[in-house]
């Protein structure tokens, strides 16, 4: 084993341990804020694994999009729904958790057996390496042009949809009971007042 292989192996081990540890922290920790910050650790270690796999462009995109956008978005979401509530304990929680853990371990065993028994046709061509960004650009503008444009349209749709879903129209001076409902409508709270109405009779609706 020469020096380069040793460095690759050691960094793979460090990144793998970091990724699995932070992923377990995301799932198992009770504080949601710690989970969100550990999620950033997962993304950064996956970005390091991409660099080990000769994918520099995807590693940069991973850091930019996931750490810079998705993780910050999740932190903002946590701040917006930051309500310290203790969840009502259910009975037989441990049973569901044990069953889920058993299913997950079984799935991992199945996938591991599949991975280790399949004869992978590992190609012996030289890796693209630093040329990868150029090749990705050529793909995006020749044979992947239609999915590229569709992805941009999808991003626009998701942007508008997120704004429409999350928008709140404040009507702070209005009382909930003073709204004259037209006849023959279902008795539901008006959507605009859902954040304002804090009277105790409204909480169970």
């Amino acid at each position: 084993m020469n020096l380069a292989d040793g460095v690759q192996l050691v960094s793979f081990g460090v990144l793998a341990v970091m990724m699995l540890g932070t992923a377990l922290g995301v799932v198992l920790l009770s504080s949601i804020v710690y989970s969100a910050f550990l999620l950033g650790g997962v993304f950064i270690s996956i970005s390091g694994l991409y660099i080990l796999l000769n994918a520099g462009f995807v590693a940069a995109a991973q850091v930019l999009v996931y750490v810079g956008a998705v993780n910050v978005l999740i932190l903002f979401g946590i701040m917006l729904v930051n309500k310290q509530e203790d969840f009502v304990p259910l009975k037989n929680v441990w049973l569901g958790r044990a069953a889920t853990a058993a299913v997950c371990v079984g799935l991992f065993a199945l996938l591991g057996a599949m991975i280790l028994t399949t004869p992978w046709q590992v190609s012996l061509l030289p890796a693209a390496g630093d040329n990868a960004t150029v090749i990705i650009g050529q793909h995006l503008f020749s044979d992947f042009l239609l999915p590229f444009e569709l992805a941009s349209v999808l991003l626009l749709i998701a942007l508008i949809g997120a704004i429409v879903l999350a928008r709140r129209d404040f009507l702070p001076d209005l009382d909930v009971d003073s709204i004259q409902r037209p006849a023959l409508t279902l008795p539901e709270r008006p959507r605009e007042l859902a954040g304002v109405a804090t009277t105790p009779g409204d909480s169970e609706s």
Partner: protein
Amino acid sequence: MISLQYFLLLAAALFCIGIYGLVTSRNAIRVLMSIELLLNAVNLNLIAFANYLDPASIKGQVFGVFVITIAAAEAAVGLAIVLSIYRNRNTVDMEQFNLLKW
């Protein structure tokens, strides 16, 4: 050279952790984070295959870029849905989102 199987096993472990979090967590935002873990596991598989099985024309990396795009859109819409549900039901507990329960 690290062989392909190590990366695939690592991605499988991350996928299983994500499934566990998706099923067992009660906070709606933690469910979204688990979905991100799942997408990242799939993405790691794609990049590993692109490096080991198709190193000349790296179509797996292009797929990875598309998956990252879709994941960003999914996170935005998912958080908007969670905010909307929180505004209507005044909680983020997944066990209380039982409006469609039979």
